[in-house]
């Protein structure tokens, strides 16, 4: 993710505008975000190997799936949205979030976690989460007319397998699903924040 961050900054400095930044970080983004699928496996293994980081399998799987979906099924598949500002919005949000999050896990495993990293992980999400979600939703919305026009990933009747799928409607349903899901994840993080940061306060006071 640092690679992506550096890539973004370099490309911006080189070109002076932020419109085509997607192309400069396209490959590392796809590689690292897809690689995050491994994370779901790691979290699952936590139930067998308690040394590994504790985290909810369902929540992690959810987040990774939605990111992989945005990366491949929307941004990669619908070329016309790659120049949208909304793509930059979620890429920046993901990049900052992931750099902090992985630093948090690394330092935790090394048993030397600077308070700043812990604070950053449980505080910056307050802005980054809505930022990422907005970027994602705007990108999907921008992709809609192109999907409708090209019939991307859609199959219609009649066909010999008697099946139909409308990707356009599917994308709309995905957008709608953000409404019940996003608040739940957001409040979960807020709850975690209160738990984790106040716990540290108590530790400090007792010292």
């Amino acid at each position, binding site marked *: 993710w640092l690679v992506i961050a550096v890539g973004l900054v370099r490309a911006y400095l080189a070109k002076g505008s932020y419109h085509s930044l997607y192309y400069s970080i396209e490959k590392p983004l796809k590689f690292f975000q897809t690689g995050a699928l491994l994370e779901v496996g790691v979290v699952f293994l936590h139930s067998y190997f308690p040394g590994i980081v504790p985290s909810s399998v369902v929540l992690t799987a959810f987040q990774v799936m939605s990111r992989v979906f945005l990366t491949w099924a929307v941004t990669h598949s619908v070329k016309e949205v790659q120049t949208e500002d909304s793509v930059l919005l979620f890429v920046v949000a993901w990049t900052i979030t992931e750099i902090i999050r992985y630093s948090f896990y690394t330092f935790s495993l090394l048993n030397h976690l600077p308070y700043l990293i812990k604070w950053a992980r449980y505080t910056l999400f307050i802005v980054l989460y809505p930022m990422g979600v907005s970027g994602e939703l705007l990108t999907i919305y921008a992709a809609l007319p192109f999907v409708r026009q090209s019939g991307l990933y859609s199959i219609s*009747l009649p066909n010999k*397998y*008697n099946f139909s799928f409308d990707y356009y409607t599917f994308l709309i349903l995905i957008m709608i699903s953000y409404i019940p899901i996003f608040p739940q994840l957001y409040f979960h993080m807020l709850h975690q924040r209160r738990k984790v940061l106040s716990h540290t306060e108590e530790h400090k006071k007792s010292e």
Partner: protein
Amino acid sequence: VESNATIREIRLMFHKSYPQWYPARQSIRLDPKGKSLRDEEILQHLPVGTTATLYFKDLGPQIGWTTVFLIEYTGPLFIYFLFYFRMPFVYGLDERFTSSPHPVVTLACLCHSFHYIKRLIETIFVHRFSHGTMPLRNIVKNCLYYWGFAAWLAYYINHPLYTPPSYGKKQINFAVIMFLLCEAGNFSIHVALSDLRRDGSRTRKIPYPTKNPFTWLFFFVSCPNYTYEVGTWISFTIMTQCVPVGLFTLLCFIQMTIWAKDKHYTYLREFKDYPSLRMPIIPFLL
């Protein structure tokens, strides 16, 4: 209470003191995190001293298994008809109440209906449940699943643009024969299992093959009823050549494999002389 009191009697007494917690809702155990005690257990046979401490947990509102099955299975039966008879709100006003030119569509409706009517009859006359009830919220989940899938697959099979199977009559006839054999097999197993409890008991016994050839699958498999059920849905998939039916079949297979493995390992734990040739759901394989 008397030392020879059963847990059932204790539950009834508890219910009198706390009318909102009827016996089916009570989980009584010896240890707060322990397993729920069965109705038939007698107090003096349990590992307690002169005074026993029992723990109570509220299982939430309960609903009877028979009731659940009746609701779960009646839904798909009638929902399918909405699509078969092409109610106006399903395929639009132009296609309302029309019928398909393909005989396989009527055949599929007959098979689907036969399957669920059979299940309803079994629920009322054949099955003997070991647990009386399940939590109420399960019924919402279960109905969404059964009813939802029934609507989804009925939509495609009865669609005006439905395409009949690629290999025509050969494919359909093969599927029908497989369907009837599997339905007969499934019914035979349910009857055999029910006969194990003809005396009204709720304890588990090892099922064995009987004179009925369909039950000979017990030589190879612990839960042949699930095996036959998957077979029924595979035959229905072949008959209709429809992807949603195939997906439903796959999900059924996964769910039933989980149940079969559970049952199989429970049998192995409880009975030392359990036949070693048996696999949970697929002979020699799974």
